[in-house]
Every structure is written in C-alpha cells, then in structure tokens.
C-alpha cells in the first residue's frame, strides 16, 4: 500500500509529462473500444438484416444451386417437396433464372426471382406485386432502380429463355421499389410472382431454393434438397467482418505502440534522472526488488489514470454514438454486402473490461522492462548520482 501511495504521488508530481502519457494512452483505450464496437454493431445489424430480408430461418437449396455461378441455374430447380419442415407458417419457395432487361434501350443482365406474393417470412414487400390486365408485376430494390433508372409504374421489357432454351419476352410493370441494406436481394435482381415465373419458364411447381420460417428448427435434407443453416448462410459476412477486424487491430496496435513508447521513454528517463532517489531508497532499507516494484507500479498507474480519463470523455462520446449511430457515407451496394446507412456500435462489458485488462498488462510489462536496470545499480554510486 505504501509503494502504491508513493508511486501515485511520484506520478502526479511529474505533472505535464504524466498527463501527456495518460491522454495518449486514453486515446488508445477509446479507439480500441470504438473500432471493436463498430464491427460488433455492424456484425449484429448485418446478420439481423440478412435474416430479415433473405435468409429467414435457413434455406433448402437445390443440390445443384450455386449462387456464385449463375450458369448452373438452368440445372438447379426441382418440384417443391411437401413436408420438408414441420411449421405452422408455410416455407417460401423461390425460383431463380437469368434474364435481360432493356430499360431505355440499354441491355442489363438480371437475376429474375419468383416468390409467392402472399409470403410473410421475408421483409420483401411482395404484396405490392399486384397488377391488372395480365401484366406481370415486379418489385425491385432501390439500388437496382437507380442503376436501371426505373421508377414505380414504369414498364420494362424482360427477355429470358425457358427450360428448352427458347427465347421469350414480356413487359414487366414495376409496382414497388424497396429500400434494403441487403444488396444480395437488390443489386441486379427483379422479383416477380412465383406462379408467373414458373409459367414463363415452363417449370410448374418448381423452385431453386426454399426459405424456412424462423424457429422452424433444422430441416431434414433430401437427395435433391440440402438444408443451409444460419452458420452456412452468414459465413461470408462473418469472414468479411473478421477481415475488417484485423485492419482495426493494426490501427490500435499502432496507437498502443505509440502510447507504450511514451511510457517506456518516461520510465527510462525516470531511472536515469532519479538515481539519487533510488540510492536513497536502498540506503533507507528498501530492497532492490521493492524499488523495481515501485517504479513498475508508477509506470502501470499510467494505464489506471488513462482508464479514468478515457472514461470521463469516452463514455458520453461512445454512448451518444451507440444511440444516434454513425452515418456511412458510401452506398451499401458499393461494398456488395449488407451494411446499413447508419451503424450503431455495440459495446459489451466484456469488450470494455478486456480492453482495459490488455492495456494494463502491456503497460505493466513495458514499465517493468527498463526498471529491471535498477537491480543492477550500485547503491553508493547511485547515491552520488553517478551515471552507471
């Protein structure tokens, strides 16, 4: 307790030098917590949005379906099987094919997706797919609408090939445009009623994938249908966030290194300038180990003070951001993955406690490193203040 009091008094006595170190170290605390909080918030938000807009409770994929290879779409469809899952809410079959639209005389390749208009599992506004006089109603996402320069009420020609490879073309009426954070249901896609697409493709009662409701439990795979759970369907977003996380780690490692350099520098300087004090302490009966402990504690206390200072300005700042969110200046479609216009960082207790612990341990190690030199000092020489 004595050495703690002594260390604290020495530290505060150093004045500006201590506070400079403390402020730099507190920046490090806040940046670590902030970047980790953003990634955690993005992770939660992206997963929730993907479940809401695209994945539901998991999907059954036709065994040949590969979302990264549109050329396989011709062979990845089959009759919708009965009783894949036991759930009150019926699953949502989706049929996918390639097509071409011609907005304003331009040619755009699209994925045409058929979905039942009455479905309730996904947040897609499929109820808007209503039209009169035999028109085919279609809904598209905001990014697709901007790219194709289409608006609600516009007509656009769709050309596709049926199961025999025969060309066909029809006019589609855009009956709704939805705003989503999930580009995989938006960019380059057109949603039309499932029955229409089955009819157009000569594939009655067939689908490419089947979206199950949440809490329906794991589905049982068959020879033709493979169940893809959340872990599989969210693997991409998780790996991207992990990759982004490693970039964040590099940033905070640089910050931490700068702070540690300052602490290390201060320690070296203290030992050099306070040799008489070290000699006096030893002459008064302190063992060399006790003196090392005192100097190490002085260094380590930087991180305690930094945690307090960081809390003073960091808690209100981080709280405000978690409530108001951070506006992302880029369109989510530019990234090709689910990202909301505003990100709400999430700061867990484990994140805050873990960060404080890591910084304290690192600061203690950095403080101890130069203090070991004290053990080699000759007390009489040190008392005279001679440089050794």
């Amino acid at each position, binding site marked *: 307790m004595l050495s703690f009091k002594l260390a604290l008094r020495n530290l505060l006595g150093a004045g500006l030098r201590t506070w400079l170190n403390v402020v730099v170290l507190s920046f490090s605390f806040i940046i670590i917590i902030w970047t980790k909080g953003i990634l955690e918030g993005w992770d939660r938000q992206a997963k929730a949005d993907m479940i809401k807009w695209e994945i539901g409770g998991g999907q059954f994929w036709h065994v040949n379906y590969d979302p990264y290879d549109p050329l396989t779409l011709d062979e990845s469809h089959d009759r919708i099987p009965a009783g894949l899952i036991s759930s009150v809410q019926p699953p949502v079959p989706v049929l996918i094919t390639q097509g071409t639209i011609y907005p304003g005389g331009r040619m755009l390749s699209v994925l045409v997706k058929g979905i039942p208009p009455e479905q309730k599992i996904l947040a897609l506004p499929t109820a808007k797919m209503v039209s009169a006089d035999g028109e085919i109603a279609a809904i598209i996402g905001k990014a697709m609408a901007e790219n194709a320069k289409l608006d609600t009420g516009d007509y656009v020609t769709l050309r596709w090939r049926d199961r025999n490879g*025969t060309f*066909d073309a029809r006019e589609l009426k855009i009956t709704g445009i939805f705003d989503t954070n999930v580009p995989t249901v938006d960019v380059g896609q057109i949603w039309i009623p499932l029955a229409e697409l089955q009819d157009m493709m000569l594939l009655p009662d067939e689908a490419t994938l089947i979206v199950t409701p949440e809490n329906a439990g794991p589905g049982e795979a068959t020879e033709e249908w493979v169940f893809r759970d959340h872990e599989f369907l969210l693997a991409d977003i998780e790996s991207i966030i992990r990759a982004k996380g490693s970039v964040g780690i590099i940033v905070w490692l640089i910050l931490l290194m700068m702070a540690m350099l300052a602490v290390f520098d201060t320690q070296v300087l203290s030992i050099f300038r306070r040799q008489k004090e070290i000699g006096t302490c030893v002459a008064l009966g302190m063992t060399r180990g006790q003196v090392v402990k005192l100097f190490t504690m002085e260094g380590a206390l930087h991180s305690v003070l930094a945690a307090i200072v960081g809390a003073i300005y960091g808690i209100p700042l981080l709280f405000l951001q978690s409530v108001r969110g951070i506006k992302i200046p880029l369109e989510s479609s530019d990234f090709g993955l689910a990202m909301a216009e505003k990100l709400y960082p999430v700061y867990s207790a484990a994140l805050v406690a873990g960060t404080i612990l890591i910084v304290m341990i690192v600061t203690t190690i950095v403080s101890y490193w130069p203090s070991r030199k004290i053990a080699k000092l000759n007390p009489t020489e040190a008392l005279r203040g001679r440089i050794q």
Partner: protein
Amino acid sequence: MKKLLLVFIITGFTPLLFGQYPDGKDILRKIDDNMISENRYYESSMIIHGRRTSLTFKLKTWTAGDTKSFTEYLFPVREKGTKMLKLDDQLWIYSPSADRIIQIAGHMLRQSVMGSDLSYEDLMEDSKLSEQYNAKVSGEEVVDGRKCWIVDLTAFVPEIAYHRKKLWVDQERNIPLQEELFAKSGTLLKRTRLSEIRRINERWYPGKILFKDMLKDGQGTELVIDEIRFNIEVPDHIFSKASLKK
C-alpha cells in the same frame, strides 16, 4: 380503267385463288441446299457498333455440320490468337495472354460474343432450317430490289432458341435477304439483313450480314465475309483441343 382494275384484281388474288405460293417447306429445303454445306472455311470481320465507337474483330472459322466449329481471332492485337472450339454443346476458349484453355458449359453458348448482337450459338451454328421449322409462305415483297417470298417459320422441335421466324427469301436465288426472330410471346427480338449477295461456285452467299437486337439501341453488329470456301478438306485435328494451343 376497267381493264386496269381487272388486271389488278386478277394479279392480286391469283395466288390466293389458285394457291400459287410455293410450299414453305420446299423453300426451306432450297435455302438449306444453298446455304448449308458439309463444311466451310471463312474469314470475316465482325464490326460491333456501340453507342459512341465501333469495334472490329477479324476472325477465321472452320465449321463442319452443326456440331463442330473452330474460330481464331486475327485482330485486334489484344485478342489475336484467341481461339474457340465448339463440339456439340461444349465450348472451349483458349486465351494466349493467360495461356490457358477454359471449358465453358453449354449455357455460355447463349451469351453475347464480345458484347455484340450475336451469341456464340448465332456465330458458330449452322443448322438446317427444314429440320427445325415448319414453314408457310404468307406473301411476297420486294427487298433490296429483289422479289422475295415472305415465309413464316414455326419451330416443331422444342429445344430451339427462336420459336418463330420470318424470312424474306429471294425468289430466284433461294437465299433469305431479311430475317426476323421472334420470342414465343410474339415480341420481335432480332432482325438480320443479308446483303452483297454473290455467287460462289453453285451457291448464292451474302458478303455482309447485319444483326440487330431490336430491344436495345444501337446500330447492331455487322459480319463481313471477306473470304469463304465450301466443302474443302478440313483436317480432323482442327476440331481437337490440341489445335487450341497451336
């Protein structure tokens, strides 16, 4: 005046009254006899007219029936040496810059060639019309100063790209001068104009073909036949994967 009217009525209704329009299927057979050969070799220029600029590709192609085709790009420099081999519904492309052969599934045949109005199917296939379509002559019209039969074609085989076609067939030369390709719904998808018709041995063959995707803007894609030879001796190794890297 009455005589004139009489002549007009007689000439106008004679084909209807006496069934003078020839049999559509016969016309298709004549077109096939004229256009289709056991094999052929041709050098051509494909000019893709874009919104602002035009791109020219020079190609040399060997075909045998409707199952084998081999094409080599001669121009521009960046595409020179690129080769494509089609055997049945499989397509292999060799790119000299990557020095690799890529095998592409049958679906790729439906994709556009270098952003043109032609698919690989259009460019590399040479199927007999009479084996795919029923035909009916619906009238006659003058195209490029030549009297043509208007022939409506409806596919009788299920696996075909265009369910319906309309041809304007030169009555004397048995070659279509214009072709319209329709979707099943009746929407006009593509129009092809064949011009600079010339006699090559016993055949009439176009020197220039203009393909136009009717759903998009632009002036279409021209295929200019610089040189063509029919029923020549094509060594077997041409239609093998080994020839892609040669």
